[in-house]
């Protein structure tokens, strides 16, 4: 493959992925409002277009045309930088996620993954660990005590949950003997081949930590509106706020995609008689399942108290993840 062709194909992939992810984010907000409304026996936004399907467009237009207010106490360019820093890592996650196997389009063979690096899992962790900076900076640079409290909470929470987050995956990695996400997908053939069955504890810890890392309910203490107005993004308005919003949803989709890839067989079809559904669609279906779960949790669970959150992370999840790691290592050694 020559250089120009490689660049062109990569460009097409990047544009497609970003487009799909951003559209996904927009419709996530719509789905969330409709589904939460159903949970609460309301109707939700149903007026813009059929079933309210144009609501995300309306929201986006509103967001862009709103006045961008900058507090007088805001700190220089940090204030402008913070939303961008939250947004970029969320998008970068999709670099290593496989959407399908190798395909041939117009006689050109290409992998349905942007970069099939052999440290995919670590890349995911490296990128998500950077997303905390946006929140920290936003909280600090707004020059408001609610923002500062929100930012501090978010960072303390993320640092605490990151440890268990990483450890929860070690079990899978021990079994799989690889860090490449494409390789992980290939190993999970069929319904019972999914790693979620071999690593149920690992999956549970992983998902709980993922929810905490993305600052979603019931771990959304960073923006606890009953005490902190809106937490770290209190002072943000217009599209700056919009960027935080999209960043949060993109991070959720990213986590859903990673969980699908590592624990639920990625783009593989779980049942043979359903093989006619294309891999990309399988992937989308599985990720949508996770997105629904996110919304479901938000509608059902009350928010943690701060000390409960910290205790839960350090005294429950961390030891469980550690135990799971040692147990898996032991079993692996024993079976060898």
């Amino acid at each position, binding site marked *: 493959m020559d250089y120009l062709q490689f660049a062109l194909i990569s460009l097409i992939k990047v544009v497609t992925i970003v487009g799909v992810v951003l559209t996904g984010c927009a419709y996530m907000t719509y789905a969330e409002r409709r589904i939460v409304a159903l949970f609460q026996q309301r109707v939700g936004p149903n007026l813009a277009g059929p079933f309210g399907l144009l609501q995300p467009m309306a929201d986006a237009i509103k967001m862009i045309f709103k006045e961008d207010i900058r507090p007088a106490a805001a700190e220089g360019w940090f204030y402008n930088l913070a939303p961008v820093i939250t947004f970029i890592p969320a998008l970068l996650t999709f670099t290593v996620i496989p959407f399908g196997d190798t395909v041939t389009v117009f006689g050109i063979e290409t992998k349905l993954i942007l970069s099939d690096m052999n440290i995919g899992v*670590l890349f995911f*962790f490296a990128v998500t660990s*950077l997303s905390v900076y946006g929140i920290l*900076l936003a909280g600090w640079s707004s020059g408001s005590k609610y923002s500062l409290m929100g930012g*501090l909470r978010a*960072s303390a929470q993320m640092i605490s949950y990151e440890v268990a987050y990483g450890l929860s995956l070690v079990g899978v990695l021990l079994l799989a003997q690889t860090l490449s996400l494409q390789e992980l997908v290939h190993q999970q053939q069929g319904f019972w081949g999914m790693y979620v069955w071999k690593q149920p504890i690992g999956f549970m810890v992983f998902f709980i930590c993922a929810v905490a890392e993305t600052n979603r309910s019931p771990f959304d203490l960073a923006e606890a509106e009953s005490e902190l107005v809106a937490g770290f993004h209190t002072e943000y308005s217009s599209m700056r706020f919009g960027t935080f919003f999209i960043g949060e949803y993109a991070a959720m989709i990213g986590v859903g995609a990673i969980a699908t890839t590592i624990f639920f067989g990625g783009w593989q079809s779980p049942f043979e008689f359903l093989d006619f559904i294309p891999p990309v669609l399988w992937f989308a279906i599985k990720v949508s399942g996770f997105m629904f779960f996110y919304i479901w949790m938000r509608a059902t669970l009350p928010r943690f108290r701060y000390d409960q959150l910290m205790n839960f992370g350090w005294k429950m999840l961390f030891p469980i993840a550690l135990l799971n790691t040692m147990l898996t290592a032991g079993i692996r050694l024993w079976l060898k």
Partner: protein
Amino acid sequence: MEALNLNVIVFYLAAGLAIAGAFLMVWQKNPVASALYMLLSIVSQAVLYLQLDALFVGAVLIIVYAGAIVTLFLFVIMLLNLRGEDLVNPSAGPKRYVKLIISGVVGAELVYLLVESTGIGTHLTKLDSAIANFGDVKPVAELLYSKYLYGFEITSILLLVAIVGAVILARREPGEN
């Protein structure tokens, strides 16, 4: 040839940013900006590792330093709400030229050691013939758990001692406010 040129451009960009970030980190009076420049420097260094195909080392550099250590720095700075004017008092401490001499000597020493131990600059071809996937997970793990096992274990004990020490320092006696 084009690919090679791109590699060279990325190298100089990343190396330049790493050095500029390190300098700006020291020059900044605002502690938050300092921490962010440190972050810039670390991320650029990670890019350099990636260019050497040492993917694992690069990823770990970001996870550990950018993801945890600098985050903690920022957390503490923000928790104490430090501003530049709280910290910097140019007349206090050693004179400026003393600081310059000390850092100059240490810097020269580092460069000397680097040149002596690796021969960088004299025979650059050595870098090309590095061990295959030397920065990948497996070679690093094999060395860490065989040749350097004692060092590794002793480091972990050191860290444990540090943790216990921190807990003891932070602990409040019952009744103490």
